[in-house]
């Protein structure tokens, strides 16, 4: 087989793409910072569960809080409600904002591009690892919540928002769906972070700007004066994951969330491509 055989070239390129993606994931998840962020996310449900266990769970708090003492499966959901406004966007902002500018600031970006990695592929791989991180982050919250709930509270059939009851198996399935839903909702923010990351060589700036976008989106979502904008904000569907806890499941928000995030990924992915492909990489 000669080296000019096109299929061989293609397969080796594809292998390179997967290898690059896997090595990128390895770098991301071996990083102390990433592990610390996932640890902090896991601490949220554990803190909630312990606090409820100690105090008895009376009083006011986020949604589902009062149900935890009866059913540990609600720990993860309460933790998601708590994490969605700030913690999750913060961690996604750090990962996505760091994706390109981090390489630029440590001077490794040009070496990546010198090796046969196209700029598009680099962006795709960076975005793909951010997607994996989104899922890992939400699963961390859910799984830590499940474990903490199982240890500290009884586990049993779950009462849905509609007042119907489902068994533990279906409840776990729905918890998984919720994790996917929340991760999906963060993709638009990850794309925005990737774009911002191509604009600058200072990763801290890109991270901060991405988190600011997330907060701005939620502030605008609270104001009734900007009501026309609401359906177009990336955070619009964030808390609608509760629609998966209705009987029957209300899939409309899942679809709405997917389309909205797809639009953000398309727009900011294209912007990131245009910016990054035309950029003079000097560092």
């Amino acid at each position, binding site marked *: 087989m000669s080296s000019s055989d096109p299929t061989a070239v293609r397969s080796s390129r594809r292998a390179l793409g997967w290898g690059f993606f896997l090595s990128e994931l390895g770098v991301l998840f071996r990083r102390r910072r990433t592990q610390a962020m996932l640890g902090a996310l896991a601490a949220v449900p554990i803190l909630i569960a312990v606090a409820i266990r100690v105090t008895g769970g009376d009083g006011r708090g986020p*949604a589902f809080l009062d149900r935890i003492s009866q059913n540990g499966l609600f720990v993860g959901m309460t933790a998601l409600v708590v994490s969605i406004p700030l913690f999750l966007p913060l961690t996604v902002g750090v990962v996505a904002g760091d994706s390109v500018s981090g390489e630029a600031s440590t001077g490794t970006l040009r070496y990546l591009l010198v090796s046969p990695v196209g700029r598009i592929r680099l962006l795709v791989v960076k975005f793909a690892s951010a997607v994996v991180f989104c899922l890992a982050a939400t699963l961390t919250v859910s799984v830590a919540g499940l474990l903490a709930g199982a240890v500290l509270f009884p586990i049993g059939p779950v009462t849905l928002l509609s007042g119907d009851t489902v068994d533990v198996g279906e409840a776990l399935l729905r918890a998984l769906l919720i994790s996917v839903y929340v991760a999906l909702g963060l993709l638009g923010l990850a794309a925005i972070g990737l774009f911002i990351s191509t604009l600058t060589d200072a990763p801290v700036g890109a991270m901060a700007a991405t988190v600011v976008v997330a907060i701005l989106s939620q502030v605008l979502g609270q104001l009734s004066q900007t009501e026309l904008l609401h359906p177009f904000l990336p955070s619009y569907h964030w808390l609608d994951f509760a629609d998966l806890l209705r009987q029957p499941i*209300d899939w409309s928000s899942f679809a709405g969330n997917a389309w909205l995030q797809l639009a953000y990924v398309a727009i900011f992915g*294209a912007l990131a491509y245009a910016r990054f492909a035309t950029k003079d990489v000097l560092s």
Partner: protein
Amino acid sequence: MARNQKRWAVAIAAPAVVAVVVAGGVLATSASADLPEKTPEQVLELAAQADVQTFSGTVEQSSELGLPDLSGFGGSTGGSSDGSGTAADRGLSPESALELLTGSHEARVYADGSDKLRVQVLDQLAERDVVRNGDDVWLYDSSDDSAVHTTLPTRSDDSSDEGAATPGTVPTPADVAQRFLTAVDPSTDVSLGADTSVAGRDAYDLVLTPRTDTTLVGSVSIAVDSETGMPLQVEVLARGASSPAFEVGFSSLSLDTPSAELFDFSAPDGTTVTEKALPTKSDAPDASAAHPEPVVTGEGWGSVVELPVGTDTAELTSSPLFSQLTTKVDGGSVLQTTLVSVLLTDDGRVFAGAVPADALQAAAAAAPAGGAATAPATPAE
């Protein structure tokens, strides 16, 4: 540089594609239908004959009555009185009723025949349910995990009491439309607007315009399904306004029979259940004091309802909302919305109507104070 331009062209093309897709979706939903010509009478008849009792759908309601957003108040009042604030209180309190009438709400409605009904008011991270299965009626509120159970009197074969079974919920389009259709009389001009499309179904647009200009209501338009005659949407416009002040309609509708499990409801474990005899108060704030005979003056759209002294206005006026919502006028306080005005006089009488506030004041001045008293007067606060 040409390559760079091409790359930026991609970046500009992506938002353009997204915009086209979004605009296409918007246009597709608002595309007007081309239905066979009908006179308003024929459409009214079509609506009167409507006999759709089995369906499932999503109802969206939005109100711009010119009142502040009360969704926050609804939650806080429920939470502050956690011990006693069960679904019963929340579902029937003036705050809850006001909260449902203002702002925007989404509800899923499932109906199978005349005696199986389930309404789910979809709040964010919470849900309020009304389930009727035969004579059993359940109210369930997920935010405080409480339920109310009521058994209807067995004679309830007359299927018209849907309204009674749904206290504290978003009215279905059928309820609202029926209310307006019965009000169609010589005081009202009935015409047909352009054909519309609601929830993907072609519909006639019945427009009711009051002939008098003493009322705040500009027009009421009812979208009548061209196939079944079922009212799909009701919009109420204030006089001179271009967008609806109150709107309730289906955003999706299926005429298939909903799953029987949906009506099979019993209180989940750990729920605070209140057994209740038939609720004597209904959901609407105006009707909450319906037992003493109200006095109606004027006629048609301009009529004013007077509720006698002694109705439980104390409950209303002691609410912290009251001072926020009302303005002080000569002889009382006025709750002014874009469609309805309510006057609470200082001597405890209540006047309400779809008329400007000064018409209510005139009516209050004309009616002798205490003339309609049937119960001992409560001290004015």
